[in-house]
C-alpha cells in the first residue's frame, strides 16, 4: 500500500520511519515548507510536494497519514475521506469536539478507516501498568496520578505556543493520559482543571486536572509545558492492597554528551525496546485494513479524548467542574 504523509515536522519524520518499517511504501511527502518535504522524501525515495490537499487526489495513494498541526487535521481528514483513502491521523483527533464530529461523519460516509495515534496505549510501560492494575495485584484501584511534561515543544514561535491552535498542554499532551485513563478505567464522570496558558513573560503552560471516573476512581493528572528542559512521565496507581509506580527518570539508560557550554549538557534517559510504540500503532492500523481486526483505538475513543480535554479547558475557564 502507498502512503501519503502530510506534515513532515517532528512527528512526520517519526511516522515516515514507521511507515517504511510496517511494510508500506512511503510514496509522497507533503509539507507546506518545501525543504521539510524534500528532506524527508529524499531519505525514503518518495516524491516531495507542498500541497497536501492536491496530493490526496493521487490515485496511487491508499493511505493518508496526517502529522500537521492540529487545526489542519479536519480539512485533511475530510478530503482524504472524500477521496476514499484510509487515514492515520496524529492525536488530538481534531481541535474541538465539533470538528471531530464533522470528521467522523465524513469518514463514516466514505466508509474508510480512520486511526488516531493515541500512542500511549501502545507504550510498553503503560501496557504493564494497565496489566498490573487489571491483574488485581494491588486490589481495587481507587486513585491514579499521572504526570507528563517538560519543555514547551519547538519553542515560543511554534504553533504549539498558540494555545488557540494547540489547545495548550491539556489538549495536546495531557490528552494522552486522559485517553489512557478512560481506556483503562472506563468512562469519566466529571473533570476539574486549572491551566496556566501563559504567554508573558514566558510561554508556558501547566495544567492540573482532577477527574472523577464513573466507577468512582479519582485521577489527578498534571501536564507541563513549563519546564526549562527535559521530558518526564510519572504514573502512580493506588489500590486497596498496594501501589504501582512508574517514573521515566528511572530509565535503564542515561547518557550525557560532553558540551562546550559552561552550563554543561543534559541527561538524556532512554528505554530501548525492539518494537517502538509508534511502530505498534502502525501495525495495528495496517492489520485493521488487512484483516478487519479492530485496533486498540477507535475513532469514537479519539473523539472522547478530545471531549475530555475540551471539558478540562472549559473547567479551567469557568473555575468549576464540568460533568460528562
Amino acid at each position, binding site marked *: 500500500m502507498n502512503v501519503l504523509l502530510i506534515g513532515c515536522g517532528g512527528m512526520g519524520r517519526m511516522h515516515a520511519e514507521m511507515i517504511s518499517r510496517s511494510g508500506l511504501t512511503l510514496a509522497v511527502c507533503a509539507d507546506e515548507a518545501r525543504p521539510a518535504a524534500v528532506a524527508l522524501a529524499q531519505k525514503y525515495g518518495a516524491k516531495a510536494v507542498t500541497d497536501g490537499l492536491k496530493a490526496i487526489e493521487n490515485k496511487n495513494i491508499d493511505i493518508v497519514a496526517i502529522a500537521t498541526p492540529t487545526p489542519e487535521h479536519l480539512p485533511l481528514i475530510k478530503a482524504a475521506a472524500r477521496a476514499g483513502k484510509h487515514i492515520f491521523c496524529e492525536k488530538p483527533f481534531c481541535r474541538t469536539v465539533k470538528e471531530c464530529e464533522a470528521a467522523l461523519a465524513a469518514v463514516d460516509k466514505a466508509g474508510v478507516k480512520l486511526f488516531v495515534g493515541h500512542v500511549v496505549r501502545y507504550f510498553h510501560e503503560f501496557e504493564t501498568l494497565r496489566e498490573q492494575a487489571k491483574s488485581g495485584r*494491588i*486490589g*481495587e484501584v*481507587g*486513585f491514579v*496520578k499521572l504526570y507528563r511534561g517538560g519543555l514547551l515543544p519547538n519553542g515560543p514561535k511554534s504553533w504549539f505556543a498558540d494555545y488557540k491552535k494547540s489547545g495548550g498542554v491539556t489538549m495536546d499532551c495531557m490528552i494522552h493520559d486522559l485517553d489512557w485513563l478512560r481506556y483503562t478505567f472506563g468512562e469519566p464522570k466529571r473533570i*476539574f*482543571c*486549572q*491551566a*496556566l496558558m*501563559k504567554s508573558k*513573560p*514566558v510561554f*508556558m503552560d*501547566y495544567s*492540573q486536572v*482532577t477527574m*472523577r471516573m464513573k466507577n*468512582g*476512581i*479519582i485521577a*489527578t493528572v*498534571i501536564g*507541563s509545558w*513549563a*519546564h*526549562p528542559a527535559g521530558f518526564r512521565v510519572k504514573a502512580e496507581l*493506588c*489500590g*486497596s*492492597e*498496594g*501501589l504501582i509506580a512508574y517514573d521515566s527518570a528511572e530509565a535503564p539508560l542515561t547518557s550525557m554528551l560532553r558540551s562546550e557550554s559552561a552550563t554543561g549538557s543534559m541527561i538524556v534517559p532512554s528505554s530501548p525496546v525492539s518494537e517502538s510504540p509508534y511502530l505498534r500503532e502502525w501495525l495495528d492500523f495496517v492489520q485493521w485494513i488487512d484483516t478487519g481486526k479492530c485496533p486498540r483505538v477507535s475513532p469514537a475513543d479519539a473523539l472522547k479524548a478530545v471531549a475530555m480535554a475540551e471539558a478540562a479547558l472549559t473547567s479551567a475557564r469557568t*473555575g*468549576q*467542574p464540568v460533568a460528562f
Partner: protein
Amino acid sequence: MVNIGIMSFAHMHAYSYAACFNALPGVKLAGIWDDDKKRGQAAAKQFNTTYTGNLTQFLSGKMEGVCICSENVKHRSMVEEAAAAGKWILCEKPLSPSLEDAKAMVKACKQAKVGLGAAFPCRFAPTLMAVRDRIRAGEFGEIYAASCTNHGQSPGGWFADDVLAGGGATMDHTVHVVDLMRWIFDREFTKVHCESGNQLHKKTLKTDDLGSLNLEMEGGMQVSHLASWSRPKSYPTWGDVTMEFIGSKGVLYVDAFGQKVNVYSDRAARSEWASYGDNPDLGLVHDFIESIRERRSPCASGEDGVAATAVTVAAYKSIKAGKAVRI
C-alpha cells in the same frame, strides 16, 4: 530549666515530641496526662516521667508549657483548660477540624496571654526551609503554579473516625502543605475544589481516605494538592510531602523527606527507607521551648492553625457541594 507536660498520646506524634523534649538540654518532660490511663502510664514509663490522671491536678503543676496530642475534636477543650492554667501551648495539627473551635482556641489563648502554636514541623525541615529561602530570594521568579502531595499510610483508629477526627485523609493531610504554602508566600488561599473518596481500604474506614484538591491563592497562583492514605503497608516509608513549583525563571521540585538510604533487610517484610539529616520535630519542639523562654508565639501560631483549618473546612464544603468554593 523549662518544664513541659504532654497532654494525651492519642496522636503518635506525641512519642516523637516526648523524645525531643527529653533530648533538649535545659528541658524537662515533667509529666504526662492522658484520658487513656494505660496509654498514659506506659508513655510515662517509656519517657521516664510521671503520669497524672486528673487534669486539674496535672495543670496545677509547675510546667510552663504543654504539648497537646489528643484526638482532633478534643483539642479545643484541652487548649482552653491549659490556657486558663496559664500554660504555653503546642497543639498537634490540625488545630481543630472546626473553624469555630479553632478561632475559640486562639481567643482563649489571647485572653489568657499565653502562646499557642500549631504543630507544623515541616517548617523545620531543612529541605523545605531551602525551598522557602530560594523562592523568596527570587531565584525562580514569580511562581505561577504548584503541585503538591502529602500521602501517608493509613493511621487507622480514631484518625478514620469522623466523630473524633472531624474528617479523614483530607483533614489529616491537607494542613501541612497549606501551612507550607502560606509560610513560603505570605499569601492566603482563596478558593478550593475537592474530590474525595473512601476507596482505598475496601470501605473499612468511616471517613475519606483520599482527597484531590485544586486551590487558588491570592494573586491567582494555581495549586493542586493530594491528601491521601494511599501508601500500602508494603511501602518503604510512611509517606511523603512533595511540591513542584512552576516559576517564570524556572521550576523547583522538592521531596521533603527524600533524604534517605534504601535498606533491604531479610529481617523485614518490606524494603525500607532509613532517613538521614535533621529531625524536623526537634526543630519544632526547640522553637516551642524558645517561645516559652521569650514569651512569644511559636513559629507557626494559632492563627496559622486557623488559616489551615479554614482551607480543610472549605474543602469538605466543596466535596458536599460538588463545586469549587471560596475560602
